[in-house]
């Protein structure tokens, strides 16, 4: 499945990485020699709906690239959950700006190829979950975004970043709605 498992039995550590798969997709999209960058999405750019009608997916493999990145995100790269959720909202009609954002993710991956899921940092057996929400984050329809992560022994096992289905009227409402989804997740 493109994942590689390494472990240290004396210390009861286990790491999952996808370096091989990531190198392959960088090569496939001709980004294998790009310069690395530290942040996957440009904080200064707010991606919006493509209004001028120039479909960037005609000249660039936008959808293929997002889907390849999405697979990496589902397997080990939870750090891509938010960027992928934003980019996949524009699958149908991406602009040049969106394509630049995809290329930026490749540059980010270039710099973080060696990142692995690491199990064993904490000794406790319990499952630990975190969730958070922004408010009014989407400039287009003013919906909020929720993210969550569940961890065992310091390693993430389940994660998500999603736009909420309804519009929240306050930060508190957004956060409250945001806690519902992760509460249901462990049972489904």
């Amino acid at each position: 499945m493109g994942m590689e498992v390494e472990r240290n039995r004396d210390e009861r550590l286990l790491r999952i990485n996808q370096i091989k798969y990531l190198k392959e997709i960088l090569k496939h999209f001709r980004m294998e020699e790009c310069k690395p960058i530290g942040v996957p999405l440009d904080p200064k750019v707010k991606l919006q709906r493509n209004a001028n009608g120039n479909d960037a997916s005609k000249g660039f493999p936008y959808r293929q690239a997002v889907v390849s990145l999405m697979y990496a995100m589902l397997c080990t790269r939870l750090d891509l959950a938010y960027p992928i959720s934003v980019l996949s909202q524009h699958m149908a009609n991406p602009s040049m700006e969106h394509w630049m954002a995809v290329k930026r993710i490749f540059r980010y991956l270039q710099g973080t190829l060696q990142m692995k899921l690491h199990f064993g940092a904490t000794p406790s057996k319990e499952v630990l979950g975190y969730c958070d929400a922004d408010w009014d984050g989407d400039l287009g329809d003013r919906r909020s975004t929720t993210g969550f992560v569940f961890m065992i022994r310091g390693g993430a096992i389940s994660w998500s970043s999603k736009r909420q289905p309804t519009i929240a009227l306050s930060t508190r409402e957004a956060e409250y709605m945001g806690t519902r989804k992760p509460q249901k997740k462990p049972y489904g």
Partner: protein
Amino acid sequence: MALFPGTPKLESRNYNETFVPVAKFTSIRCILALAALEDMEIHQMDVKTAFFNGELEEEIYMEQPQGFMHQGGEHLVCKLQKSLYGLKQSPRAWNQKLNAFLKSIEFMKSEADLSVYVAQVGDVKFFIVVYVDDLILVCNDQNKLLRIK
């Protein structure tokens, strides 16, 4: 009854069930984390020519393969005894067979993820995650693991 290959497969007439459970990434990660914690053995195996092992629920016929025509019986067709690669129902036939085998050796299917099987006898814990023809076996007793393999 279905003819393979050549005729388009109409759902209602030619096959009924094609659903196959595939392991969730969450369960794979979860079980690997558990294995690391309890220092269990992890083995990975893929089943060679897995789909040839499945038993078919329907009667399926195919044209005789080129070069293996029956002399004087060119108008005959073959009835399939087992599933073949390329059939819509092959993955399911294989999964059913594996499911029956694992149940026969006292594995319980997880209700949260239909592709995870669990067995516990005394202190010996055993997990199997099925990803079509790839299996991940996790056990805290190496001998038992090798026996099942």
